[in-house]
């Protein structure tokens, strides 16, 4: 890692510049990419962000610790449960509260269910970016089953503020275990269809193989985490390296690859779906009996100090940093969100490719724009 990775963009007045976004469908939200073209080749990519900045970090300073939870749903809405869990774990560790075993197991199962739902939607959208509209319907068909399970237990499908410092809002629904087992059985049959439809498709492979190569050094220096980083050989799985909740009780592999192109990032997410199902199957029958929440005071006051906790969301490492002065409101809350780091590698791995390849590369990074802007 001796070479300094330079990322200086020199703008010339005779560059041909086009804007991709903010309403472009393949940017999955309001992201504007400034592309400088030389013929059909892209010289540089400059992301312009902040179109849906809501100032959540500042809003957290006037909220109590229970009230912060529902704001974290709105970062990466596809991994809402993991974001909630990051704040809850941080507050619980700061107060040195031991949550019941039941809570840890349920949280881990919900994490993995949420990761499955998130990867399914990514698969839909990635196929659609590259022109395969059929994938969108097949992916949403399977995601619907998970969302129905969520709706029964949490009451909402996408933004379920189900965690609270000390445990969960409610106990899981009595049908939860049965329906989750049914889903795993169903999805094990359906996941090979994903390979038949898209992964083995020759047009798809020609558009993704060998494009957007990211080396391990680039991944580390840009802080690219999650499946995108692991496809380059960067071992960054928080679940494995710093286990939280019940991840130390399950046996699972951290999936690594070293090729680092767009197709590898695609294959790695499909492999993660199989691994998530393994984790759920190990836990779903062994949920211990007990309370669904620990005994907490109605007004939580953290001791004076600084606290950091990270979790693995479906897109990478999410960190929560809280500074407390002993009052019921935090002095400063900082969120390290995975998509912010993942976006800015786009210039490094995208420049030199054609415009249509930028769509494939940014799709394989699995960007969620509210997570970048927050």
């Amino acid at each position, binding site marked *: 890692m001796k070479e300094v990775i330079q990322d200086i963009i020199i703008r010339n007045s005779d560059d041909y510049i086009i804007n991709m976004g903010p309403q472009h469908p393949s940017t999955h939200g309001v992201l504007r990419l400034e592309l400088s073209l030389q013929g059909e080749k892209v010289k540089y990519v400059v992301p312009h962000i902040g179109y849906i900045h809501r100032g959540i970090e500042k809003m957290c300073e006037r909220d109590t610790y*229970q009230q912060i939870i*529902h704001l974290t749903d709105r970062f990466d809405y596809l991994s809402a449960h993991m974001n909630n869990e990051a704040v809850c774990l941080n507050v619980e560790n700061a107060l040195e509260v031991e949550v019941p075993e039941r809570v840890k197991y349920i949280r881990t199962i919900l994490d993995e269910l949420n990761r499955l739902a998130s990867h399914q939607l990514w698969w839909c959208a990635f196929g659609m970016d590259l022109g395969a509209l*059929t994938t969108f319907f*097949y992916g949403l068909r399977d995601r619907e089953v998970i969302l129905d399970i969520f709706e029964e237990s949490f009451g909402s499908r996408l933004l379920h503020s189900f965690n*609270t410092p000390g445990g969960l809002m409610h106990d899981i629904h009595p049908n939860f275990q049965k329906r989750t087992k049914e889903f795993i059985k169903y999805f094990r049959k359906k996941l090979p*269809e994903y390979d038949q439809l898209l992964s083995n498709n*020759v047009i798809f492979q020609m558009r993704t193989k060998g494009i957007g190569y990211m080396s391990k050094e680039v991944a580390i220096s840009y802080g690219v985490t999650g499946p995108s980083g692991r496809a380059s050989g960067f071992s960054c799985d928080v679940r494995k390296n710093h286990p939280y909740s019940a991840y130390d009780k399950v046996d699972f592999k951290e999936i690594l690859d070293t090729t680092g192109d767009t197709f590898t990032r695609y294959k790695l997410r499909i492999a993660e779906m199989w691994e998530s199902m393994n984790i759920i199957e190990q836990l779903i029958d062994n949920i211990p009996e007990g309370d669904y929440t620990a005994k907490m005071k109605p007004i939580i006051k953290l001791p004076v100090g600084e606290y950091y906790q990270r979790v693995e969301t479906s897109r990478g490492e999410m960190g929560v940093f809280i500074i407390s002065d002993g009052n019921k409101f935090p002095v400063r809350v900082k969120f390290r969100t995975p998509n912010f780091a993942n976006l800015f590698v786009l210039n490094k791995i995208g420049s030199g490719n054609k415009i249509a390849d930028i769509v494939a590369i940014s799709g394989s990074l699995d960007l969620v724009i509210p997570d970048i802007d927050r």
Partner: protein
Amino acid sequence: MNIFKYFGEIFGAIKSLWAGMRVTGYYFIHPGQIVTQKYPENRKTLKMTERFKGEVIMMHDENNQHACTGCGICELNCPNGSIEIITDKITNEAGKSIKIIDKHIYHLSMCTFCELCIKTCPSDAIGWGQEYEHAVFDRHKLTKVLNHPGSSLRKKPSKEPNQE
């Protein structure tokens, strides 16, 4: 040698396309396995799950009585200011002036469905409603008064231990 590779690639490509077409073809001739729901047509019979977060409502019994004492804990816990409570003071039969609830105002347009108000309500006066169609033409219609007109506070039967 080159020509074999050339034709091999062509056959591999056709095979991969055929595999994808077989999946879609299977569902084309098995329409029973397609899972789609028509949105407006089962509106009468559609039953949401019991924990469904539609909107915040105040439960009233058959005598038009509710359990809200107007303590303001839900207003305090709401992170968005979507609940406003206007209380009134009346004199009861014993000649004591007590605080009762005049209006429990709920702004559905500001609500983020975090469930903190319902979770912290000490008298379980509010809960989730099952309504899921909230589209209106004027946003002022999303501001609701939760206590029904003419409703009153339910008398506590006696000291009863909490159920939870």
